[in-house]
């Protein structure tokens, strides 16, 4: 696996520029993911890679196309110091794992091998042996993630028909 590491305030306009929002299918979104901040991302990213961001990751537009694009690239999860709130709820709602952990962001280098346990929120830098604990999700949110997204969890609860 590879790490793609970015700075603070990675906005949804660079994650998936608006000029590609007219084609919201996963394949198209994935092919332009991160284009305006890292032109090589879409062509080099592989299944299981991890994106690391600084503070306020996913700020800006509410476009769900942003977490969809990252997920469609095969990225395993995003680890950031903090997430912009709409990106945060969009990722949860589509069942895409995100972890808030400032220590891991500072401690992990782009060359390192990293493993993540989503259930416990434990992030291990296999290269250095360092262990980080991400903020755990509240039970309600875990329920959404475990059902594979908001709509599936609402259906399971019998709220949506």
């Amino acid at each position, binding site marked *: 696996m590879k790490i793609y590491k970015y700075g603070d305030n990675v906005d949804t306009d660079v994650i998936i520029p608006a000029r590609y929002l007219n084609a919201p299918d996963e394949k198209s979104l994935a092919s332009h993911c991160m284009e305006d901040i890292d032109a090589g991302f879409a062509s080099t990213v592989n299944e299981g890679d991890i994106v690391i961001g600084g503070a306020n990751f996913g700020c*800006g537009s509410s476009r769900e196309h942003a977490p969809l694009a990252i997920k469609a690239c095969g990225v395993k999860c995003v680890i950031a110091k903090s997430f912009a709130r709409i990106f945060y709820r969009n990722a949860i709602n589509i069942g895409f794992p995100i972890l808030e952990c400032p220590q891991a962001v500072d401690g992990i280098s782009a060359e390192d091998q990293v493993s993540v346990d989503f259930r416990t929120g434990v992030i291990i830098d296999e290269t250095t042996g360092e262990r980080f604990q991400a903020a755990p999700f509240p039970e309600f949110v875990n329920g959404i993630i475990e059902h594979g997204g908001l*709509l599936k969890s609402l259906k399971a609860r019998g709220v949506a028909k």
Partner: protein
Amino acid sequence: MGMTMTQKILARSAGLAQVEAGQLIEGKLDLVLGNDITTPVAITEFEKAGLSSVFDQNKIAIVLDHSTPCKDIKSAQLCAACREFAKKHAITHFYDVGQMGIEHALLPEKGLAAPGEVIIGADSHTCTYGALGAFSTGVGSTDMAAGMATGLAWFKVPSAIKVNLVGRLGQYLSGKDVILHLIGLIGVDGALYQSLEFAGEGVASLEMDDRFTICNMAIEAGAKNGIFPVDDKTMDYLRGRVSRPWQAVEADPDAEYTSKVTIDLSALRPTVAFPHLPSNTKTIDEAAGKPIQQVVIGSCTNGRLKDLREAAAILRGRKVADGVRCIVIPATQQIYLDAIAEGLVADFIHAGAVVSTPTCGPCLGGHMGVLSDNEWAISTTNRNFVGRMGPTSSMIILASPAVAAASAVTGVVTDPAKV
């Protein structure tokens, strides 16, 4: 313990007597909004999940405003999907070309937002309706799909920052200067996961259009919502627009705030934000002189009648500078008609500006004013991120309508008092 305005509205929507910051609740929705970019994704999710009906056809608004009138085949297909869904589910508040305006100007104008209501929209600038004392916030397409099906949304109850406004704005200053100044003070994540609650004696002097602009950009400070108290100006605005019953809330006197910020409106200078963050603010005195090639006056932030009046007051009898393209976009059909009736549209055209039908177009680099390599624009929109309005080398300065209009006349960033 006392509750903030936002907490009181959320408690009521969840049927609870009391909520506190950090609590997760499920609230009943008064309105669910989507546009031509976010609604198609919501429709896909809605149908993929096998959902059969909407919770209330009168409490859903779909506005085709981003790529319309359609800029290309793919956008036309997205609009067609919205049209088909709206027809199938008999959505009352479906606004197509001819009726549509920029969603966040249109919904308040049509009386679809009222004090104390809970509104989600699959567009980040849905926070605009806080100007009317509503709780409104941006969400994604899956939230929109879930909201359309169930009339419910989950929320983490936010804490709040209290923004105490004192004094009164001077000439050539407006809501845009207030919000840019605030974002410059607290940063683009300064209000992350929190509410911005505006209060203080300075509120009364702000027109509704200024309050809409201020709440519109609460998201640019990371806020979940921005909200104003309900006063006589709010009531005047609602009169003739909203006939259903609504119930305003006030913050408790002992409501807790994580921090308090005071802004003296009398001391503000025209404020702009340089690339590439809305928090990268400068006063006009620091920014003046920077050459620009394009001016955009419009958007959900600044396409209302007061904005157009302020821009026209400067462009009237003057000419847009050589080498500058000035694009004016009234946010709704009604604003467009009012601007024609007041002679503002004639002022713009005589000055050498173009006036467009309502669209979000250039704000997000969609159409109607995309930039070329290394070009600089001054724009009354809300985001100056890398590549927002064109190639990654293009640059955006965010400004008020008065500053944008003054800059159109001179070709450089200009203090409206000096035109």
